[in-house]
């Protein structure tokens, strides 16, 4: 036998190995069998239920995920993945929104022109603005579809009744995010849509100057719920700044906190609901 030392395989042999994929297991065997490897890693990964749990639970990025899930949780026909899609769209608006903040100034003189600047003079500005806009629109749709699915499947019933309540708040904050974002382009549509929208606050019981019981509280058009929202008596620059702060800071923070609770409750209430 003249097989001393490494043998150079023939081309045909090598091609066979590549074609059959055997080359990968060969390479893996070479690496994991080497002294360097075996000296660093004393034993391999044991694919046991305990290790699987630990892999998820002890990873800061993964620990929000369930360590185990039901087979039915993957049934797209049951959940439509609407909650997950809503969250994905939320993340898209956060990322594109932060990018837009690099150019947009919430000042009466600048806001409209910054929006136009983003659209026509900033590379990929149009893409970012439209992604933000369409993700926001889509999020409103998917959040309603998610609610519709939860209602139809009866997933709002105990033990998930508390999460339904959190979800109702999240729908509200989604709509508020859309409404506050509506003003920021600072064009005619924005002005009048928000004028009409905030006019409703005039009719708030106790706190709106045209609402029931206003006379007992003594609110005036200058000091009522609507003035609080728009920082004055007409939709002007103070309203723009106020809506900007609400849109970029306050509502996302509150909605984010509620999302954390929402996702956590899913685990605590027995995972994603499934068909009975």
């Amino acid at each position, binding site marked *: 036998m003249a097989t001393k030392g490494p043998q150079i395989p023939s081309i045909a042999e090598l091609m066979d190995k590549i074609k059959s994929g055997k080359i990968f297991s060969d390479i893996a065997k070479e690496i994991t069998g080497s002294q360097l490897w075996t000296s660093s890693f004393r034993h391999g990964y044991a694919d046991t239920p305990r290790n699987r749990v630990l892999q998820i639970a002890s990873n800061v990025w993964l620990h929000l995920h369930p360590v185990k899930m039901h087979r039915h949780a993957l049934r797209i026909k049951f959940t439509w993945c609407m909650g997950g899609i809503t969250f994905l769209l939320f993340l898209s608006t956060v990322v594109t929104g932060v990018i837009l903040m690099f150019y947009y100034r919430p000042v009466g003189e600048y806001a409209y022109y910054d929006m136009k600047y983003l659209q026509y003079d900033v590379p990929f500005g149009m893409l970012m603005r439209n992604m933000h806009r369409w993700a926001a629109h889509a999020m409103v749709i998917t959040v309603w579809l998610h609610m519709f699915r939860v209602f139809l499947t009866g997933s709002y019933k105990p033990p998930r009744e508390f999460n339904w309540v959190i979800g109702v708040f999240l729908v509200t904050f989604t709509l508020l995010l859309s409404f506050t974002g509506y003003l920021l382009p600072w064009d005619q549509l924005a002005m009048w849509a928000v004028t009409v929208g905030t006019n409703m606050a005039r009719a708030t019981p106790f706190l709106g100057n045209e609402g029931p019981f206003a006379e007992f509280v003594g609110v*005036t058009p200058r000091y009522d719920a609507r003035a609080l929202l728009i920082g004055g008596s007409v939709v002007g620059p*103070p309203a723009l700044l106020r809506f900007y702060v609400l849109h970029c800071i306050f509502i996302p923070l509150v909605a984010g906190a509620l999302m954390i609770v929402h996702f956590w409750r899913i685990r605590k209430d027995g995972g994603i609901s499934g068909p009975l």
Partner: protein
Amino acid sequence: MAEAKGKEKKEEVVDTIWSRRDFFSLAGWASFLGALGLSSLYFARLLFPRVLFEPSPVFMAGFPSDYTVGAVSTKYIKDQRVWIVRDEEGIYVIFGLCTHLGCTPRWLNTENKYKCPCHGSGFTKEGMHFEGPAPRPLERLKISLAPDGRIIVDKSKKFLWEKGQWGDPGSKLLV
């Protein structure tokens, strides 16, 4: 003896309703919540500035003799969004805001009515709604006389027919 005294003292401490620890804990929480509540009030007040950079709701509208009896003045509709109307009794101010969805109606002199271009609401010269979707009459605004005899219009004070306010003081300037 000394041991017994020590025990007595310990029991005294236990017997008090509020231990020192309880007292400081409650005092701490009370001052924290108090400070939080107070700063919330400050914040709520902070959101209502003392000065607004907005057009004043009050404007001067010339002398009563500028207006002819039985006519609707469209002099201020563009700048101030009001009509000034004079009848045999006096002068009143109608707010040019359609009570349907908030467009500005137009005064049609030949048809003797205010007509809203958006959805066709019609109002009589006095502001009563008589056609179209508007659910209530046009609103009237406060009118008064300055010491120099000029008319003062205050758009922040409204008089609503449905609340029976068209006869209230300030709703009409009797001349």
